[in-house]
């Protein structure tokens, strides 16, 4: 068990002839407290896998420090880092039985006697519920079982840290949901510091204690899932976290009104005056699809008219594609509604953007200027410090 | 043109039955989705339509013509593969053109024109002279689509074409594909195991399990009126809650709960012995115990439960709960609450299950005995009728 810390970590791949090279990871600093579950998330090519591979020792670190426990491990070889990794492809040895697959790491990295190894392997497989598969070969196992063996191989070594590289992406949806919960339970039970790479929204939101959002090699935000969802630090995080994405509208400020191409949004006086913004600032207004209200419920000044383009019913919710008048054809925005869809394409509906749910971003830098107001019901959560 | 009929189609590989007695009829221009868990036979069915597998039994017709023994190249179909199957040694232009070369009646100039036009439709004109290896996943996907549409076939077959893309790109390509299919108006059969794709893309949905067709219908029909427990469980994420038990005196007992059945449910149950009650997670109301009832005793459809896990997704929360004072490690119910309504692990909550939202299945056969009642939001309904 140990704390993991990345300190200004940078990775540059140098090409043969161009001097500048490609910066895959740029000055990333994150701390993972002992026993914490950190999810690294971002679009493909954002550097999340490279970061993970640097922690594992499979890539060298160009600059900065990787610290595990109380030692810097930049120059420690992968074999000696006391880290276990689960790969996307499971990377099981096809010619070995499940038992030998799991025992292999122990034989290589510890001085345990054969008896102790057998015992440890059996404990681990029992924990994973694969104790009846011990003598099979990987080829005879289903995807979920292979996944469990790969996990078993990781936990049996009792490492300081787990690294997981999209371990669930090869499973089908139902199995993935099941394994997701199982993995969480397992991590809680073992209390091992874990770094988990994924591009899956649901995994990012539900599995980690904290998530770190990366884009183009740069760290965008580190925080609890709900922080990243409700208080994104910039436009990228706002757009990346959440499915369907947050709707954004470009506009500029005129006293207490935001003027966009399609509508004029007036803020209550106190909410903008706090922001200390210059007149005519270029801003981006953001609102989550589930915060948009459809219907004729209220007659406040935040109600606009829009036309329904497409309704995608999902059963539990409906994804409604909407469009304001006089906007180019592909400029749609999305609202989600619950239950049986009661609007259909072509309908004209009232659209309400409640002021509490509005985010504002600086149009140039993308930085969040104002995030939504939060009012949780149920447990008044301390989850968002 | 382009109507596909499967007539008692069966495929056996040695002893294993991959597809069993599937009868299905598409309409011309329809977008049909084949969905099911891995190994359910959906890909085999698609491959039989493509002519890559020969049916063991039954008949296959496209546009009224018997197809069982016809080779793929004579079926006038195009197929998009999960791994795109682009020819790595050919440029994008050659890849798209390849299929055209076999069609009779094109001059070289016409072919080039056709390729250019298709590439323009898909926004890949600048990529025409690159090789597939130099393209991103999304671009490769577009080339694969281009190769399919350039031949203007009667039928499109797609085998999980979006599975290799990342989430954001996938939802973008999903909409694009739908648009494309609507514009071209070509009968399309689309295989997926992705919930969202299944629910949103198709005109109709065919659910397969163990090689057998479970139900065919519009997505919402399958969601709200499943024909059996398998369909109810397969469609919807998080999946429907199932409570196993039996009924006595108009009361359902099982899974640590006693649930009074109203007339509608009791009628449907009749004298069936083993029962499964089904409730969608979003139909369950969850409130903290102190807020919900205060000192009041729970009503007949209310239950006290303990929160085992609460997953925050942002827009919604998935709450797993166990029955109070019940020594099981097995979560009794899963509910979905609004994103702003957060309960935490260990909270004591009151759960309300409205009898109108309950499905009842036969515990032995899995057949549906009755489905939930449906009603639309009256306010929104009023808006749309204006």
């Amino acid at each position, binding site marked *: 068990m140990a704390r993991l810390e990345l300190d200004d970590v940078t990775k540059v791949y140098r090409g043969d002839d161009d001097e500048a090279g490609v910066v895959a990871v740029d000055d990333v600093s994150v701390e993972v407290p002992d026993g914490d579950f950190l999810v690294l998330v971002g679009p493909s090519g954002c550097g999340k896998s490279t970061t993970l591979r640097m922690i594992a020792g499979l890539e060298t670190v160009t600059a900065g420090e990787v610290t595990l426990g109380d030692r810097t491990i930049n120059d420690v070889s992968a074999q000696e880092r006391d880290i276990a990794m689960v790969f996307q492809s499971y990377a099981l040895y096809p010619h070995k039985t499940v038992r030998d697959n799991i025992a292999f790491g122990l034989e290589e990295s510890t001085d345990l006697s054969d008896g102790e190894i057998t015992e440890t392997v059996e404990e681990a497989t029992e924990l994973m519920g694969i104790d009846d598969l011990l003598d099979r070969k990987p080829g005879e196992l289903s995807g979920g079982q292979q996944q469990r063996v790969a996990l078993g191989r990781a936990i049996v070594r009792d490492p300081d840290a787990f690294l997981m590289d999209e371990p669930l992406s090869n499973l089908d949806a139902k199995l993935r949901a099941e394994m997701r919960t199982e993995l969480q339970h397992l991590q809680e039970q073992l209390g091992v510091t874990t770094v988990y790479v994924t591009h899956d929204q649901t995994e990012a939101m539900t599995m980690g204690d904290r998530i770190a959002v990366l884009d183009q090699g740069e760290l965008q935000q580190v925080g609890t899932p709900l922080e990243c969802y409700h208080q994104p630090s910039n436009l990228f995080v706002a757009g990346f976290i959440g499915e369907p994405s947050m709707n954004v509208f470009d506009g500029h400020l005129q006293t207490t009104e935001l003027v966009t191409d399609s509508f004029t949004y007036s803020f209550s006086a106190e909410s903008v005056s706090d922001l200390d913004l210059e007149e005519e600032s270029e801003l981006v207004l953001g609102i989550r699809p589930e915060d948009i209200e459809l219907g004729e419920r209220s007659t406040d000044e935040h109600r606009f008219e829009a036309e329904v383009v497409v309704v995608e019913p999902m059963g539990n919710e409906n994804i409604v594609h909407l469009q304001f008048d006089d906007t180019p054809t592909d400029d749609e925005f999305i609202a989600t509604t619950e239950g049986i869809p009661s609007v259909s394409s072509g309908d004209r509906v009232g659209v309400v953007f409640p002021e509490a749910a509005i985010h504002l971003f600086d149009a140039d830098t993308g930085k969040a200027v104002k995030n939504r107001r939060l009012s949780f019901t149920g447990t008044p959560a301390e989850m968002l410090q | 043109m382009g109507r596909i009929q499967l007539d008692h189609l069966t495929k056996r590989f040695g002893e294993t039955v991959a597809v069993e007695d599937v009868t299905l009829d598409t309409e011309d221009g329809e977008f049909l989705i084949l969905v099911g868990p891995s190994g359910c036979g959906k890909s085999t069915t698609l491959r039989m339509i*493509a002519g890559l597998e020969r049916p063991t039994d039954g008949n296959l017709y496209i546009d009224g013509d018997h197809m069982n023994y016809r080779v793929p*190249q004579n079926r006038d179909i195009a*197929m998009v593969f999960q*791994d795109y*199957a682009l020819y790595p*040694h050919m440029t994008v232009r050659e890849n798209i053109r*390849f*299929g055209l070369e*076999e069609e009779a009646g094109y001059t070289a100039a016409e072919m080039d024109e056709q390729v250019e036009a298709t590439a323009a439709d898909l926004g890949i004109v600048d990529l025409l002279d690159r090789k597939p290896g130099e393209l991103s996943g999304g671009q490769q996907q577009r080339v694969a689509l281009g190769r399919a549409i350039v*031949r203007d076939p009667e039928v499109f077959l797609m085998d999980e074409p979006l599975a290799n893309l990342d989430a954001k790109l996938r939802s973008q390509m999903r909409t694009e594909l739908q648009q494309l299919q609507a514009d071209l108006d070509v009968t399309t059969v689309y295989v997926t195991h992705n919930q969202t794709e299944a629910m949103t893309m198709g005109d109709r949905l065919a659910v397969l399990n163990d090689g057998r067709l479970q139900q065919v219908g519009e997505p919402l029909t399958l969601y709200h009126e499943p024909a059996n427990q398998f369909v109810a469980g397969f469609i919807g994420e998080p999946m429907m809650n199932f409570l196993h038990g039996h009924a006595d005196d108009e009361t359902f007992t099982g899974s640590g709960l006693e649930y009074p059945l109203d007339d509608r449910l009791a009628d449907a149950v009749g004298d069936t012995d083993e029962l499964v009650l089904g409730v969608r997670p979003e139909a369950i109301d969850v409130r903290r115990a102190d807020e919900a009832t205060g000192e009041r005793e729970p009503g007949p459809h209310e239950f006290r439960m303990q929160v085992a896990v609460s997953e925050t997704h942002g827009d919604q929360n998935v709450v797993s709960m166990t029955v109070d004072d019940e020594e099981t490690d097995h979560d009794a119910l899963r509910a979905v609450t609004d994103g702003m309504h957060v309960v935490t692990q260990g909270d004591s909550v009151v759960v309300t299950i409205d009898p109108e939202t309950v499905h009842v299945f036969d515990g032995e056969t899995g057949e549906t005995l009755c489905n939930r009642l449906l009603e639309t939001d009256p306010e929104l309904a009023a808006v749309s009728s204006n």
Partner: protein
Amino acid sequence: MSQSTSRSPIDVESLVENFNYRRVGKYALVVLFLGFFLVPLETGIMTALKTNSAIARSLPFAPPAGEGFTLTNLEYAFSQLTNSFVNSLLMAVPATLLNVLLASMAAYGLTMVSWRGQIAVFALFLVGVFVPYQAVLVPLSQFWNNMFPLARMLEPLFAAIPFLQGGHSRLVPLTITHVAYGIPICTVLFRSYYKSLPNSLVEAAKIDGASITKIYRRIVLPLSLPMFGVVFIYQFTQIYNEFLFSFTLITGSNHPAAPVTLILPAIGSSTEGIDFGIRMSAAFLAALPTIILYVAFAEQFAKGLRTESG
């Protein structure tokens, strides 16, 4: 494998750090193996360049010094071998080309096209790999001499070609024999490569409307070029170096159609004893074509092996 990257060329500390016994041992082993493989070759070349008296006086692997150096051995060996070089290439090049092409087609038919009974046919190919040369020698000469005397039939035709006397017609049955004998092993090599290609490529082409031959010509053939390199080099070496079939069908080193492998044993040996200088020169010259081939196609060879195993 190495974790450290030296920051400047004169960073003494890191140099010392890098100096460890494991690394020294590794390089020592490499040098040892290099010597093991290269010394015989070097000895051969050195001997070829020495006069007879120098051979007697100096160590075998020492370079020729002063008057001991001569090129006459090489000149003599070359004059003796010229004719047989032509014969060898006349036989080996077409034989290898045909061999590789037919084997690739056979592998394609056995791997990527499905038809009833292909397993049985492939089993026959596998058996073909294991038939020893010696077992077929007698039937082979029976066949080409008595049952189907192709060489005799073609003799008038060959007599009409300048530089080739009628005797060269014997190269034709030899070529055919090599093709037939080489196909099984080449087919197995190609088959394992084709198995590694994604099946969906062929299926996509099928649905695109391509016929079986077009799929081969346009998709499979271009994709298997690296494998062609590997199999070509391998098979050319086999055929060029082969002795038993040539000996059986051409009969002796005196025949005008004799390939290099038949001439080589006779060169430099006479009643006075063995002339090592000439023998080594001849051996070196005989090995040249295959060496050139390896050097020229080394990259292709490595690439082909890589794609096959990956």
